[in-house]
């Protein structure tokens, strides 16, 4: 009797435990057991330029799907020829698909051509377990490439799968570079789910609760860029036709938005949509010209004379000099036992003239009056030596030398003030990116506000239907109006006045300002720099140009910037085509010609 009651009690207690105490947990397990979620892919967001032109589109892409348990191996050779895939590659994909589920469809091959699809469809009745679905892939309706800014999305790699959120699974597309990567959560949308009941072998029996619990996929949000796609196309062709290696960044000085960002050599981002053949990927990766490398944000070269406004600003702001202050340039500067030569003998020079003529002696002198630490302070103020916070992906901090930097690098007391001579004219260890330079030009254009550069202006929130402004930081530099006026006047004269170094940047009918620079390169030809903005009174575009190994800034970089400004402000090229001497520059004429014919 007692034994029976004991058995009853034990079983009742266990029953209570399972059905009441652990009910929640076990109930969840039971749901997971019998319900599978089939994924509905969302449509990735579109990307528009500032004028509303569609820059990055979504087009249909056909993906072949396979249900491993239903596939008949005898049809392997047919499938292999239809898909132009090696049987071994197919088997490998099937094995992976089987690991996910033998009874649910998995992707076998993405992005087959329409012709392949037509052939496949014809044979579909013979191929059990094979289906196809329409998915989306990126397409690029304009001539703009801008691969480093737009970035690209690719099929997720095994390495990515292991560290991204559980949202993704094999075969999913994920933004991997540029805006596609940075705005991945915004662009991708959200997967939807169709719930189906499955039996213990995972076979689909039917919809679950008549689809009441199904979740529609949510479209990704669209991005509206600050980019002017016509300007981008124009700037890209200017670089391409001339065969330049380098970068060009055009920015709206009013808010720091990117009007155009070119890094050459580059690649066509459409090769990354759909399936990138591995040999092409390898070629891009191994190419000695590094087309995947974003020179606009990642290169670091000495800015040369383009940096002189920083030193001038420091001297003026700290009250060390005023506009009357003059230095007599005798064509050389003695420091210690060495004489540093200038290109010309400029004679008695004030700060405006020093910028206009790029007088090195003036700035050597200034550097020792201002002092290293103050120079570093103003360099930082103009945004050098730190990242800009741009939303397109990786960027360099550049290198802004400081006492601390030299102390670490060479040891305390083991470096001399001699280093300052190079820094005074933007050479030496100083390293900046074209992006930083564009921001610097924009700050000089707008009277001293440092903006966080950004490619995206708005995102179109499709849930609320509100165009949301993407916020960005702006930092007032608190430079006195006098200082700004003097720097700007110097830069105006660089372009507009005789004796300026950038007369080739002139645009007819528009007053421009700028500064040339030549980055000394111990390994080869010098790099040409130009920073500038226009119109002078109310600037609406700031430009930075870097042309690697192409010589003087004034002769190579300045005309490019001038044409970009002209194109942006007039929407077309009005300038009489310059007739430079070098044969390479001839192709600038060619491109201008061709752009007039095909706007």
């Amino acid at each position, binding site marked *: *009797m007692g*034994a*029976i*009651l004991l*058995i*009853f009690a*034990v*079983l*009742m207690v*266990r*029953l*209570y435990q*399972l*059905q*009441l105490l*652990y*009910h929640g*947990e*076990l*109930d969840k*397990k*039971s*749901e997971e*057991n*019998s*319900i599978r979620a089939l994924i509905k892919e969302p449509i990735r967001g579109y990307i528009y330029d500032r004028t509303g032109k569609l820059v990055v589109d979504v087009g249909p892409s056909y993906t072949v799907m396979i249900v491993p348990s239903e596939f008949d191996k005898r049809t392997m050779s047919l499938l292999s020829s239809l898909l132009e895939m090696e049987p071994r590659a197919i088997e490998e994909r099937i094995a992976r698909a089987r690991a996910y589920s033998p009874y649910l469809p998995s992707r076998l091959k993405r992005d087959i051509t329409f012709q392949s699809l037509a052939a496949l469809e014809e044979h579909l009745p013979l191929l059990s377990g094979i289906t196809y679905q329409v998915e989306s892939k990126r397409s690029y309706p304009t001539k703009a490439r801008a691969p480093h800014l737009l970035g690209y999305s690719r099929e997720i790699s095994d390495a990515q799968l292991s560290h991204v959120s559980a949202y993704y699974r094999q075969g999913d597309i994920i933004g991997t570079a540029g805006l596609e990567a940075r705005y991945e959560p915004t662009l991708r949308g959200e997967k939807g789910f169709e719930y189906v*009941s*499955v*039996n*213990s072998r995972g076979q689909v*029996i039917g919809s679950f609760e008549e689809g009441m619990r199904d979740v529609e996929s949510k479209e990704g949000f669209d991005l509206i860029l600050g980019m002017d796609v016509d300007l981008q196309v124009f700037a890209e062709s200017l670089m391409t036709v001339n065969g330049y290696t380098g970068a060009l960044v055009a920015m709206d000085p009013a808010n720091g938005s990117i009007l155009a960002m070119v890094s050459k050599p580059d690649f066509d981002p459409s090769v990354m949509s759909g399936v990138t053949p591995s040999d092409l990927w390898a070629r891009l990766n191994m190419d000695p010209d590094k087309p995947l490398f974003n020179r606009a944000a990642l290169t670091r070269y000495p800015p040369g004379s383009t940096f002189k406004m920083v030193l001038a600003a420091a001297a003026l702001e700290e009250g060390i000099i005023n506009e009357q202050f003059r230095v007599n340039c005798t064509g050389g500067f003695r420091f210690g036992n060495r004489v540093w030569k200038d290109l010309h003998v400029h004679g008695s020079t004030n700060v405006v003239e020093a910028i206009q003529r790029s007088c090195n002696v003036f700035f050597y002198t200034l550097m020792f009056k201002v002092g290293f630490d103050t120079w570093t302070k103003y360099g930082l103020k103009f945004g050098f030596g730190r990242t800009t916070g741009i939303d397109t992906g990786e960027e360099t901090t550049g290198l802004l030398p400081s006492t601390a930097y030299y102390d670490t690098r060479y040891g305390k007391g083991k470096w001399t003030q001699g280093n300052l001579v190079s820094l005074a004219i933007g050479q030496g260890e100083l390293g900046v990116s074209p992006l930083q330079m564009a921001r610097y030009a924009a700050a000089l254009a707008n009277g001293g506000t440092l903006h966080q550069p950004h490619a995206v202006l708005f995102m179109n929130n499709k849930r609320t239907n509100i165009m949301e402004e993407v916020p960005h930081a702006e930092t007032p530099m608190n430079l006195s109006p006098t200082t700004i006026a003097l720097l700007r006047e110097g830069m105006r004269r660089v372009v507009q006045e005789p004796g300026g170094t950038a007369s080739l940047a002139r645009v007819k009918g528009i007053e421009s300002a700028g500064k040339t620079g030549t980055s000394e390169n111990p390994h080869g030809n010098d790099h040409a720099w130009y920073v500038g903005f226009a119109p002078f009174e109310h600037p609406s575009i700031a430009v930075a140009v870097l042309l690697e190994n192409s010589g003087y800034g004034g002769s190579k970089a300045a005309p490019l910037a001038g044409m970009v400004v002209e194109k942006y402000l007039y929407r077309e090229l009005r300038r009489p085509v310059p007739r430079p001497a070098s044969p390479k520059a001839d192709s600038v004429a060619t491109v201008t010609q061709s752009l007039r014919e095909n706007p």
Partner: protein
Amino acid sequence: MIDYLKEYFDFKAFFLCLALVGMGLVSVYSATYDAGAAAIFDRQLIWAGGGLVLLLVMALFPIKTLQRLAFPTYILMLVLLLVVLLIGKTTSGSKSWFGIGGLGGQPSEFAKVATILALAAFLSKTTTSLSNVRHLVIAAGIVLVPIVLVLMQPDLGTSVVFFTMLLPILYWGGASNFVLAAIFAPIIVAAGALFGTFALLFTLALAGAMLYWTRENRFAAAVALGITLAVALSVQTVYDRMPAYQQKRIATFLNSELDPRGAGYNVVQSKVAIGSGGVFGKGYLQGTQTQLNFIPEQWTDFIFCVPGEEFGFAGASLVLICFTALLLHGVHVAGLSKNKFASAAAIGIVGVFATHMLINIGMSMGILPVIGIPLPFLSYGGSALMANMAMVGLLMNFYSNRKER
């Protein structure tokens, strides 16, 4: 009129049995509903009808005749067990089933009844005394012979059930505590040996203590302890010499969760099924675990999941309550019965039912090893259903004739 009937007809056992069989049919229907095994329900229904006839026949059989036929039936069953070993069909790894023409069955199910009756008949003989070692050995032999035959099939589960009927009957038959302890001690140390050194030492200590407290003379106690030690050591030695895969097999048998893809799979799914039922269950034919066939052949050993999942705590505890009521009633009948044979047989029947209930429901809920024995009245299976209903018939018989000596 009803009072008169009540005097002679055991309504309680009858209706409890019908309730359990009814719940079984409902459960088997659900378990086979969508599994493409609808014929299973139809067959179970027919067997339930046959079982009902057998129950009534057993209820009306004169006790004296039963007692007289006990040994011949027992011998017949032993022969059948031998025959099944020689010509039986192998189903799921054991030779336990044989058929002639369209009819067939598992002799071991009926052998249980025959063994209970034979043991009861032997113990009820006036000449039998359990303090006599020879008689004790005979009593144990009556049970051990079918155990050996069933083990050869091999059907571990059923042989365990045979063994468990021995203790209650001997206890009821007046065996001394020492005898019970001497039988019990080797079993627990054998089990302990499989669970590792700590469990072995613990069960050895327990066995030693049991033998010490119940001892009648030192010699017998020493012999019993010696046998116990020998069993423990031999189990330990055999286990240690087994290849690793066999050891693993035993380990997963004892703790099926070690093997979530094999034996443990059923237990995990069964726990999920029962636990997900909650208080009132998912509704009849709505249990996802049951309807989507997560537990293979659920209608046999894991039938308890069906009331658990589809009727929840309410349904599952009703099954437990019905069982327990039937068992308590059986003990009550054994107490009422003035006939020693009937009384011992009733206890044997209770022992068998209780063992089945404990092991089957215990394994469904993951607290006991997965020993494949069915849940009486609920599990699918003709021989078991009919044998169990026959045993209820016997209980009813003993109730009706409780005043007969």
